């Protein structure tokens, strides 16, 4: 019995819109979520590094302050942008996602507790920058570690979700939900891949603080931009090793997709790898120059493209894992036109209003 593959039946109700629309929204909103998460997590780690360096170099005290003030907002963005992909994931992959979540139910549930603690930790550090103390350093690292653990639990859930062969064995071993997916060969490289990506993209976020302060305080701006840019370079270089490890840990069938069998996958990976290498070169040159702004921006935009391609690659990998158990074109579709139009109008109006709010806010605060 134990070796049987058990997968719940898909939901009997028809999809309320075509499959491609959900897939597009899933990939798009996940991309936004992962960028916000990278900003938040990477900034958290770099804030701690700045905190440590501030003991010997004063300017890093200022860098630390300017980073930690932004982390709660980045956390808000991460959570808010995470809701949408979570929603669309459940529409398309519910029978896999609910099952893997249930098998690791306790760690999954604890994500919430860790998240609340980390969030309050970041806020207490942000509100206490004027009294930078050892306690704040501890709270900061504690919050960063909690986010690290959350990421690890997510990696466990999403790797398990893609391997239904493990469901029955793990569930019957412990139906109380005290499980993880530590045996999965892709778990560690996958998690490290995301960790390094966070550090790299977080570095870019920190660097943008330098861009915005360039005219006001050139020396400080250059220091923070260089700090962010260097960390971007170190972690992207390390990504070549970890990324290769991650790639090699995938099943042979999945690897082949990126070796020519799947055009989108092969092109995405090739452009992604080359793009990352070029971004390192551009960033290195920029950091050696007197005015690194232009090079920094180019490297940042190129990285944005790489992250977008990696999101597509991730979806291709998921489909290759589940293709035996999941046939997307088998879904019945019964589009709910009325509410779908309301959503699309709200979405367009919401984006417009969101941009307007930020523009008005930054315009007015820039003058005060």
């Amino acid at each position, binding site marked *: 019995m134990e070796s049987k593959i058990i997968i719940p039946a898909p939901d*009997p109700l028809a999809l309320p819109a075509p499959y491609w629309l959900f897939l597009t929204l899933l990939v798009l909103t996940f991309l936004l979520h992962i960028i916000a998460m990278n900003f938040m997590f990477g900034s958290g780690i770099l804030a701690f590094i700045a905190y440590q360096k501030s003991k010997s170099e004063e300017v890093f005290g200022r860098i630390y302050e300017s980073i930690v003030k932004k982390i709660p907002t980045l956390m808000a963005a991460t959570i808010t942008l995470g809701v949408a992909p979570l929603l669309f994931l459940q529409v398309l992959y519910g029978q896999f996602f609910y099952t893997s979540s249930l098998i690791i139910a306790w760690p999954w549930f604890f994500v919430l507790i860790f998240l609340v603690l980390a*969030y309050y930790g970041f*806020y207490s550090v942000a509100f206490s920058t004027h009294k930078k103390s050892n306690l704040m350093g501890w709270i900061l690292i504690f919050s960063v570690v909690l986010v690290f653990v959350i990421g690890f639990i997510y990696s466990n859930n999403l790797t398990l979700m893609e391997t239904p062969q493990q469901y*029955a064995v793990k569930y019957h071993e412990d139906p*109380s939900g005290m499980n993880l997916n530590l045996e999965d060969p892709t778990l560690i490289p996958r998690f490290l891949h995301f960790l390094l990506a966070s550090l790299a993209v977080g570095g870019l976020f920190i660097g943008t603080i330098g861009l915005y302060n360039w005219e006001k305080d050139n020396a400080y701006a250059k220091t923070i931009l260089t700090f962010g840019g260097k960390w971007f370079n170190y972690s992207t270089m390390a990504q070549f090793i970890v990324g290769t490890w991650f790639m090699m840990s995938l099943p042979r069938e999945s690897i082949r997709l990126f070796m020519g069998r799947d055009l989108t996958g092969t092109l995405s990976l090739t452009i992604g790898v080359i793009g990352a290498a070029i971004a390192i070169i551009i960033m290195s040159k920029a950091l050696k120059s007197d005015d690194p702004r232009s090079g920094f921006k180019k490297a940042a935009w190129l990285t944005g493209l790489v992250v977008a391609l990696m999101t597509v690659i991730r979806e291709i990998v998921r489909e290759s894992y589940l293709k035996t158990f999941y046939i997307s074109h088998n879904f019945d579709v019964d589009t709910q036109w009325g*509410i779908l139009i309301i959503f699309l109008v709200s979405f367009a109006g919401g984006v417009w209003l969101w941009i307007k709010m930020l523009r008005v806010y930054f315009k007015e605060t820039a003058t005060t």
Partner: protein
Amino acid sequence: MNYPVWDISMGTGMLMALVAIIHVFVSHFAVGSGLFLLVSEKKAYKDNDTHLLEWLKMHSRFFILISVVYGAVSGVGIWFTIGLISPSATSMLIHTFVWAWATEWVFFFLEITSALLYYYGWDKLTRQTHLWLGWIYFISAFMSMVIINGIVAFMLTAGDWPDTQNFWDGFLNPTYGPSLAIRFVFSLALAGIYAFVTASRIDDPDVKAKIIKWANMWIIPAFILLPFIAMWYIGNVPTAQWESALGAMPTATFYADLIMYAAIVTFVLAVLAWFMARRVSFVYSMVLLLSALATMWSFEYIREAIRKPYVIGRFMYANGLLESPSDTDGGFSVEKIDEKGILNTARWIKYDHITEENKVDVGREIFRVECQSCHTVDHYRGIKNIIGAKKWDRGTIYKMLDGLDLMRNAVMPPFSGKDEEREALADWLAQVTSAPSQKQEVSGDGAQVYNTYCNSCHNYKPHDALFRRLKSWNKEKTMARLDSLPALFNRMPDLELSEKERSTLIDWAKEQFNGEKGK
């Protein structure tokens, strides 16, 4: 049965209640406070009241820390938790209401952004822009409530949706309007109640009194309105369902009583605070907050309890099984499971057939997939206590399992499965409750016979069939009729009551409700 069951001894129901109700307590505060902050800020500008303005800045920090942090995370927490506890229902809700949720997400995003800009914008933005952000926040938060309310109310009263499966039939269901009204008015009261927490810490007694009174102007009128809206709400809940809160179901009845006490306490505390506004302490504000929490907790608990046996009204039972069969039900309807059996349907049971050796273990597995969504073994709604208190023997347990859907105002789904599976469940229940192997005669009076065998389905009310008939029939005739209960009504179990049990039951029943006539 389609999904695995999260098997934890404490039961998942309490965990769900804890996550959901505390979230709701914060999210309603977040909606009401949108309007509260806006109106208060306008008032401060109009009256040129710098004290009020300074307090608002401080209060908005408290507001951000509670609503943006805890409110947002616990909102996601509900997603996590319902997915773990009722995956089939969650999937069904997502497939039906995904665009409503997606629309709500847009408003949620605007809500969080505008809240943060509002908070960080104090002293940096013009008054006009600051108020404009306040309006965006309030409208977005209110729209979130408008949308989520439709889905929550749908679970209680699904309207025509089970027949049409049309989005709007489910969304604009019978309790939609009163539920939205009750939630919005309560959210305004909560804005005032949470304001007590920060206002109570103001040192200057005059300023404190002024703000406490201002906050109270949001609480007292709301609490005067709430009973009327509650009556509107109750009027839209099907009468048979509401019976659960009137004595038929212990949980619903308990919270129906508690909500009245808690609401009265909250109201009285608010009124008293009006007269001692200068002396309202932090502890006083916390007591007020807790009594408001008890009110909200009770409201949500009643809603969840009277929804039973369903998780989605008239469509899906609390254990994830579908009430009616259809071509696409995946075999998870009661009728199909009766035909095919649990072991051939449930995907996560270890056994595929019953033997003498595994019978008790199979019973445990059946309990997990059919009963554990509401019951635990020996904690919350622990089956060990419920059945153990009755002192039923194994045979009685087996017979009673056939009428689960009649018990406690029909708040349980029927047992679905083959007869041998019911046998296995009865064996396991007999084992965990240390049931006697043979039926033992009830030694006490008729009340004890009633409590042992009858009150699972019958209500202690004059119009209940048991009392109506036992009072009107003569004893001799009744003795004969009670000898074969299925002949009276074919869903009644053949309990084989002894002559003494029948006699004491009849004598006792005849003495009840003297002066009150059964209908």
